[in-house]
């Protein structure tokens, strides 16, 4: 983190107009544009959060204190085939692949594409955006895509009490079944990992349909299969008028890993993650408004309570807006809520299986140049449980992309 702080200090202290002009403004291309390389660097500085862990990711990084470098490339050897990939590092730790897939358009007259490999999610809208760069005025992520709930794919509670003990502790959970190591839970949909599989996309003038089969789930994307189950997901989007996009999504896939399911009395007991979503975007003039609702259900068998399979539901909803005040200054805001279903834990005792969370974020951005933006954000969080229930963060970010 100190390296990120030093870098940010260096960047902000210097005369921006002078050095900014020497930075590339577009992708580096070769072979008549068949090869293109782009990059995105975002240095984010904010206060530590070692008590509440509101902004931690499934890679255990704080999104409000993160130095992220992403390098993406595409190679189009022939007109109907493209190879696409992206590698990322967060806080200058290990470099890992984020996307690596081939896209094929079998017929030139039909706008049907097949993608295979580590592919973008078919579900929802947020997960496919290059979010830290040009597209967003905000620094934080929506709760549904980032906030760590109390459940894990590699470890499971034996009883309802085991689960409730981990309420509001999604950043570090321990369970008796499966992995004995303490580890983070999962968000409803991971924004930091993409799944592996095959995807079909067809589009017409005002409608497009995407469907995919992958090895992991929305909450736990996988590079290779870990439970002999596949996820099926899809989205249909309509564009009734220019600037308006409305989407509806669905997904279902086996969630618990083999390390847990082999310990279940009935290994065939359902342990799926099912999800439904709706998303919308409208833009006009200097306005851009987006919103998304994600409902997720995990079927969780409790081995300590034979025959009991609980439906653990969660509902995430957020709406955000962006307005460009001047060509250089943009203001943005997001209101966000993540709620959980109730679980019978005893006579007259029906707590939510995880603590509900609310979040707002307000942000201002200043474009030093077209692809170099300085942002300042205030984020407020409230959780109905845990040691720290309410916390406000201030964060600054310098984001650059080409």
């Amino acid at each position: 983190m100190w390296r990120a702080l030093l870098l940010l200090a260096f960047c902000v202290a210097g005369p921006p107009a002078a050095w900014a002009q020497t930075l590339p403004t577009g992708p580096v291309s070769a072979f008549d544009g068949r090869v293109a390389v782009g990059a995105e660097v975002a240095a984010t500085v904010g206060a530590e959060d070692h008590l509440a862990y509101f902004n931690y990711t499934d890679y255990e990084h704080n999104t409000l204190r993160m130095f992220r470098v992403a390098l993406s490339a595409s190679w189009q050897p022939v007109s109907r085939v493209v190879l696409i990939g992206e590698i990322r590092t967060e806080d200058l730790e290990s470099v890992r692949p984020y996307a690596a897939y081939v896209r094929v358009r079998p017929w030139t007259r039909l706008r049907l594409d097949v993608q295979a490999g580590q592919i973008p999610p078919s579900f929802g809208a947020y997960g496919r955006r290059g979010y830290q760069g040009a597209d967003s005025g905000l620094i934080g992520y929506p709760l549904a895509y980032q906030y760590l709930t109390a459940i894990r794919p590699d470890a499971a509670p034996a009883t309802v009490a085991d689960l409730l003990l981990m309420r509001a502790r999604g950043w570090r959970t321990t369970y008796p079944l499966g992995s004995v190591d303490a580890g983070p839970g999962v968000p409803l949909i991971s924004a930091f990992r993409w799944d592996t599989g095959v995807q079909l996309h067809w589009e017409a003038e005002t409608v497009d349909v995407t469907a995919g089969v992958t090895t992991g789930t929305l909450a736990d994307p996988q590079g290779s299969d870990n439970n002999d189950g596949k996820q099926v997901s899809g989205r249909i989007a309509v564009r009734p008028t220019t600037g308006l996009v409305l989407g509806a999504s669905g997904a279902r896939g086996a969630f618990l890993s083999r390390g847990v399911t082999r310990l279940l009395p009935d290994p065939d007991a359902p342990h799926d993650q099912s999800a439904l979503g709706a998303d919308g975007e409208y833009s006009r003039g200097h306005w851009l408004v987006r919103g998304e609702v994600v409902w997720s259900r995990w079927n969780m068998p409790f081995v300590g309570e034979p025959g009991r399979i609980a439906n653990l539901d969660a509902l995430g909803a957020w709406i955000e807006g962006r307005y460009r005040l001047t060509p250089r200054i943009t203001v943005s805001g997001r209101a966000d809520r993540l709620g959980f279903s109730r679980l019978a834990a005893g006579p007259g005792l029906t707590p939510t299986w995880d603590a509900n969370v609310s979040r707002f974020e307000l942000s201002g951005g200043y474009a030093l140049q077209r692809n170099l933006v300085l942002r300042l954000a205030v984020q407020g969080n409230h959780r109905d449980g845990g040691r720290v229930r309410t916390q406000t963060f201030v964060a600054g970010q310098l984001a650059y992309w080409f």
Partner: protein
Amino acid sequence: MRRIQLLLVVCAVLISAHGTASRGPSVVNGTIRGRVELRHAPADLARRPNVGDVAMPRPHDATDRRRSVVYLEVAPRAAFDQRDEPHARLDQRNETFVPHVLAIVAGTTVDFPNNDKTYHNVFSLSSTKTFDLGRYAAGKSKSVRFDRPGIVRVFCDIHSHMSAFVLVFTHRYFAVTDDEGRYRLDNVPPGSYTVVAWNESAPTESRRIVMAESGGDVEANFALGRR
């Protein structure tokens, strides 16, 4: 007020008449012409690799980055004569700005019509002219008046591969090269001038030329870019 305006018009006519008379009957304006060659043809602007796309991006027209602009560094006084509210047009078509290079005189209003089926958001952060037209749909057009001389780089906020240059001059002695790199500056009064050639992909170059009292053609060729 009307009397003052009338007085100014009369004065202007008299000054203009004096200026013409003092040049004498044998003075003829000439033409500067030539060709701008680019040693390295600039590549088309590539799309940024977007790993979040789930389909082949729609094809867009190639950006003609070979166009150069040739202009006089210092222009004769007559070049500053104000014309009536000049207008120019920079289209957005097939996710490309057309033309890619537009040269105008200060005071020109440029229309930015959207001739695509998608939104565009034309903007510039150039110090010469900073503006943001917001998102507007097909068939709509918005305008910007360019009052200060300089180079304005124009982008689309939605399509990162779209860009254009607007070069704003205080005078009218400039020309954009044709498909073969040729240009022509007409009606140049006798005198000594510096002719400058600009292209987005190479450093500018200049030539000193002299336009004779008898007018005629003066040729000035340029080769831009590293050898």
